[in-house]
């Protein structure tokens, strides 16, 4: 697998740690970046052009859905999926509308690996 860059966006350090451990196990050698807010994620993406972005929804500041919209405009080449505890239909619908993936928490390793290896990801 070619080395890629994954950006994890979640205000919870523990959530980022758990996602990071799956990425490290499944995709050894990949670069993993972390952001605690949407604003920080956009700044990081401008500097590092991540290949994949995993985005929490309920975060302080602009929130994951608004950040995802801006990612779609500014970084259309990045594969983006929500990774969220918010299982409400409107969140899934919004992900579909934006053309991005949707993965619910708690994270299932196989869904994350599916997303990182080419699938859009939906659970």
């Amino acid at each position, binding site marked *: 697998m070619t080395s890629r860059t994954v950006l994890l966006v979640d*205000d*919870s*350090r*523990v*959530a980022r*740690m*758990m996602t990071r*451990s799956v990425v490290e196990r499944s995709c050894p050698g990949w670069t993993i970046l972390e952001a605690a807010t949407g604003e920080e994620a956009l700044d990081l993406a401008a500097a590092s052009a991540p290949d994949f972005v995993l985005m929490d929804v*309920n*975060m*302080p500041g602009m929130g994951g859905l608004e950040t995802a919209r801006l990612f779609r405009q500014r970084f259309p080449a990045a594969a983006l999926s929500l990774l*969220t*505890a*918010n*299982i*409400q*239909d*409107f969140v899934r619908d919004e992900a579909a509308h934006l053309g991005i993936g949707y993965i619910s*928490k*708690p994270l*299932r390793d196989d869904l994350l690996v599916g997303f990182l290896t080419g699938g859009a990801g939906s659970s």
Partner: protein
Amino acid sequence: MTGIIGALERDAVEEILNIAIGQAAASLSRMVGDRVALSVPFVEFLSPAVAAERLDGTTGGADSVAVRQHFSSSFSGDILLIFPERRSLDLVRSMLGDSVPMDSLTELEQEALLEVGNVILNACLGSLANQLGLVIQSSLPIYLRGRGARILDTKHPDTELVMFLQVDFSLAAKGVQGYLAFVMDIVSARHFAAAVSAYVSRVIGG
């Protein structure tokens, strides 16, 4: 306090919440890799003081830790995930497994419990919203530690009644017990019961 909502509404509310809590339990089970046993949910209308006493009774008067989220839709209130303080570290250990060194566990306890709460409370609220066909907005979760009155933090403890729903759950193999509670004031509880009744009528009516 049986007159606040009717018997059929109460039954419908308990059934809808039962499904939502089942979704939350499934999430908890996946996070900690253990079976989760649930008690049957039972809705009561209590004064905040009695609700706090009820919580303290489950911990033998010791402090609890809790994750609380405020939610709002056509009704609003708080949803809480509560654990006896002495077992919260066990839960964190179950969740993070061997990936985190023991000496980091205590430092991470609060953040880990917030993430557990985030997943479980949103699973419950999300299921509720999807069943009722509503959008429910929720605040970011907050972490609390203390006795029942501090955790419930009602605005008018001497005059309000709250709809209190407590579900006991236990992680069979790990011996961890906890409680999920909904707190709504009476106006919200009536709106909630009406939304549930409307949903049940739609389903039964085809």
